[in-house]
């Protein structure tokens, strides 16, 4: 089982909750991308590097700044020895860490988001496919917003899930302080072939019709909830379903449970909700509203 192998390889090296690792792997498996939102120093970069290494995938990193241009990501054509030569940008990696995404200008952000959506970049009329699997981990710092360009909802919608790593508990922190360099001696436990094969498997995981109805009911609840200006989009619901399928596959199941759907909903919906100003001022949060929906909508289980 891929999850156990990865978890075992990362144990004691990366300060990560199990649920976060599961969701990150699930996002990778269904072809989604991840938004890591947390304060600095919680191990976002280490996690991305370690994940790429244990999965046997190539790693790329881009530090976003306001003066970064799209070509700095995608690459450029250089004139060399009488001809134009294609120089690949750092975006051509299987696991791409985009640090502080909201520091880049909207123009550069949208170049990245286009690559995430299409799995390719187009330059000078030529299309260049990105390597497969292509998995973006973009980070955002939620506390320092000066000089940033917050992602609009339409662009946040491109991310399958938003996760927060959070501070580790003291025991894990102590182990990390006393332990070795987290990336030292970290060996791959799988490769791109297996990841791609699992990606194909995700689509075959069964989702009972009533679970789809349940998902629609959750979305309906949020869309009709007072204080919600923008509820989950069709793309969001599709990604919740895929994420739930991937979560089930990671557990070795060929079918989705209500719990998979709930975990996927918690991870995939809050960053896509747009609240009314009054609702925000009254203390409502997207996470709180998602929990409210999950508590209010009956799960499809025998009515006992």
């Amino acid at each position, binding site marked *: 089982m891929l999850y156990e192998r990865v978890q075992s390889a990362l144990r004691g090296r990366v300060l990560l909750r199990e649920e976060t690792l599961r969701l990150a792997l699930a996002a990778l498996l269904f072809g989604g991308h991840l938004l890591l939102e947390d304060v600095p120093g919680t191990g976002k970069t280490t996690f991305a590097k370690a994940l790429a290494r244990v999965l046997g995938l190539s790693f790329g990193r881009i530090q976003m700044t306001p003066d970064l241009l799209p070509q700095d990501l995608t690459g450029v054509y250089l004139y060399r020895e009488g001809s134009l030569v294609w120089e690949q940008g750092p975006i051509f990696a299987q696991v791409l860490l985009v640090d502080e995404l909201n520091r880049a200008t909207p123009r550069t952000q949208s170049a990245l988001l286009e690559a995430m959506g299409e799995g390719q970049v187009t330059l000078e009329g030529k299309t260049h496919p990105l390597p497969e699997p292509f998995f973006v981990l973009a980070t955002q710092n939620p506390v320092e917003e000066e000089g940033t360009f917050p992602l609009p909802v339409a662009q946040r919608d491109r991310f399958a899930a938003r996760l927060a790593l959070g501070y580790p508990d003291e025991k894990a922190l102590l182990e990390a302080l006393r332990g070795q360099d987290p990336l030292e001696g970290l060996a791959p436990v799988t490769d791109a072939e297996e990841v791609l094969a699992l990606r194909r498997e995700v689509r075959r995981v*069964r989702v*009972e019709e*009533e*679970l789809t109805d349940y998902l629609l009911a959750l979305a309906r609840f949020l869309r009709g909830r007072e204080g919600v200006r923008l509820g989950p989009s069709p793309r969001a619901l599709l990604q919740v379903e895929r994420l739930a399928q991937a979560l089930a596959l990671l557990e070795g*199941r*060929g*079918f*989705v*449970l*209500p*719990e998979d759907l*709930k975990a996927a909903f918690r991870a995939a919906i809050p960053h896509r909700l747009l609240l009314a100003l009054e609702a925000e001022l009254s203390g409502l949060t997207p996470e709180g509203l998602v929990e409210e929906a*999950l*508590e*209010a*909508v*009956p*799960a*499809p*289980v*025998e*009515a*006992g």
Partner: protein
Amino acid sequence: MGLLGLLHGFHLLARVEGVGPLGPLLPLFLAALGFGLGHLSLPGLPALSLSARAPTFRASPGEAGGPGGSVAYLPPEGGFPLWVGVVDRLLAHALPLALALLLALGLLLLGRRRGLPLFRGLHLLPLLLALPLLLGLFFLLGSLGGGEGAGGQGVGPPPSSPPSQGPVEWVHGPRALGEVGIALAGLSALFTLALLLALLAWAWRGRGGEGGEGEGAAFPFPRAFQRSLPASRVRRAYLEALEALKGAGLPRRPAEGPVEYGKRVEAAFPEAHPLLARLTALYLPVRYGGKAEREEAEEAEALALRILELCSTKGSKAP
């Protein structure tokens, strides 16, 4: 049975003196409304008044028969036609008998659908209750004499002692009123029978059995209703376990998934947890994975039974 009693009570109420200007018509109305069941005369209860032979209801004092007196109606002169007597007899005896039989059959089918064995289990209780009723009806039928029936002919003598004070004037009632009442009661009885037959047809179609998940697909009822009565044996076993745990004070919250619920039971009722965990493991592939269930059904039922026993023990120990 409750409905029968209620209708009977209404009918008796209607016979009480002083029910207002509608008093004389109320028995007819109630008999029609009550799908003809107003005719049911159980042993020990007062006889009902609506009959082809003697639709006798009393006018209000002062309305006829002089001050303080009353008037009682007899069948019209020349009696009712034959069909009135036949319908009256059918309503009085055959209909309750048919209803009781249909109810018993319906309960059996519903019990089978719930996966309960045919000749034991809770659903047998209503059947056992229905049997004495049937016997009572047979007794009633057997005890009937020839003098009571025969719609068209029998105009009996006036009752020897009218129930109220004052002089009573016996007059022949309007012919049409009795016929219309009987016809209405007959029609509504037929309507009731049709409804019951439809209910039975539905129970038969959804009777479940040994089939898998796909069996309920042709069911023409809303999905929420199908969910409440799962056709699969494993799902029924899980539902029974849920009901047992609910009885033990651990109901599943509507928004709770099976795994979440299992964790809560583990904390609150550790003795039941291994059983529920195993039952949940059998239930999940059947419920969400479309798995056929033949091998697991018996194990699931045994687990549900053990959970039921555990919950009963817990319930009996509770203060």
